[in-house]
């Protein structure tokens, strides 16, 4: 549910009025500005029902690329821009058994620019995800799954093209009903990382 609320909020932002702004804070991120970066976090499990038994956890590595779709839009505190891109997701599950997961997820992000060099953002990503953890746990049976992630974070621009990021994502892995059982794996994913803009 949180995923859908975040997604709707992100998609509604561009519909807000966009008064002209004399001077957006620097760095000015405009249409076509690209961003590459790496996020590293740690997966912390959530067993949401009594049927969930697995406490999967481990480090996650997420290199990504994004391109800015809009100039800063809206006014006031919610002024910001929309970016689209994709990320690779690699998770090393250290619990309950040492296994791996790798995926590719298109990603959309809304970045708030009102606070100058401190820029909060909301993001959503989702895509196919392969893991050999499935089959070794009661929740998931097939190795082919999907990963959905939604969350928020904040970037701090050290220089115009470089930023440090910290954030939180809710992570969900399931096979979309393509195999049984499919209870899904849920986790929190706090992370940190850096970005370069060009």
């Amino acid at each position: 549910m949180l995923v859908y609320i975040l997604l709707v909020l992100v998609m509604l932002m561009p519909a807000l009025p966009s008064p002209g702004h004399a001077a957006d804070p620097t760095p000015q991120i405009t249409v076509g500005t690209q961003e590459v970066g790496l996020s590293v976090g740690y997966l912390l499990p959530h067993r949401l029902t009594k049927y969930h038994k697995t406490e999967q956890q481990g480090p996650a590595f997420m290199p990504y690329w994004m391109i800015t779709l809009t100039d800063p839009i809206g006014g006031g505190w919610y002024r910001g821009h929309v970016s689209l891109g994709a990320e690779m997701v690699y998770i090393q599950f250290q619990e309950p058994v040492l296994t791996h997961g790798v995926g590719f997820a298109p990603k959309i992000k809304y970045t708030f620019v009102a606070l100058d060099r401190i820029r909060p953002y909301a993001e959503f990503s989702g895509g196919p995800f392969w893991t050999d953890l499935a089959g070794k746990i009661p929740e998931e049976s097939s190795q082919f799954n999907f990963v959905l992630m939604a969350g928020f974070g904040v970037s701090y621009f050290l220089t115009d093209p470089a930023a440090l990021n910290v954030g939180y994502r809710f992570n969900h892995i399931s096979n979309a009903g393509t195999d049984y059982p499919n209870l899904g794996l849920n986790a929190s994913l706090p992370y940190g990382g850096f970005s370069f803009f060009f």
Partner: protein
Amino acid sequence: MMGQFFSRPLISTILVMALGLGTGCSHWIELAAPIDTLPPANATVATDARVPLLLETIRMTQNGSSIAPPSILERQVLGAIEATRLFSQHYQSGYTQPMTNQARVTVRLSIDSLVEPHSGQAAWRGFLVGASMFTLSPFISLNYDYGTQMSLEMERWDGQVKHYTAISNGSAHYHLFGAHPEVIEQLKGQVTEACLSSLLNQVIQDSTFFLAGNTQPQDHPIRTVSVAVRHPSSRAIPVSRALADSSPR
């Protein structure tokens, strides 16, 4: 035999990927037909009859809000006026000024620009492209519109004033991987250039108004110069090329 079996699908895949990537990276700029229908003007004027020009102010708004004109725009305006060769010298407010007792033409320019980046459309189309795992990127284009209206006030040394206006619009169309800040700068530059040309074309029509008629000494042969507007090379620029080719030179 095996080589032939694999080569066709491989070649087809490479061709499809090259076509998709090539199309997905493309962009093109369209300028709307100019509203004024004045033919390109040119004239021959006496060199010694020309007077200096002082660019006093450039006032600029974007989507109704006042903004500081970028310095590159001031240079672009002065360069376009200078290229007409209608004036003997070109001064800019804040820099070296013409002598106070010297006949001159004072220019005040106001530029009202309108930016329509179609942000909502871009976000939704971007979402579709992302949801399709980027396979739709060659087929979904994004748009960015830019329009400008320029009003030029030219005051002669004797206080007589003439007003000119011109409007120019253009659109940049691009696919997701063709999005680049430079594309937008190109659009703005071309729209501004087209608008300036239209404006200065009107000024050239009135070229005699800005000449000092009594400064020609009788004992000198009359030297003349052709004055005309430097028109943009093309009204519509279909661009479908790598960004590296379109970088400013």
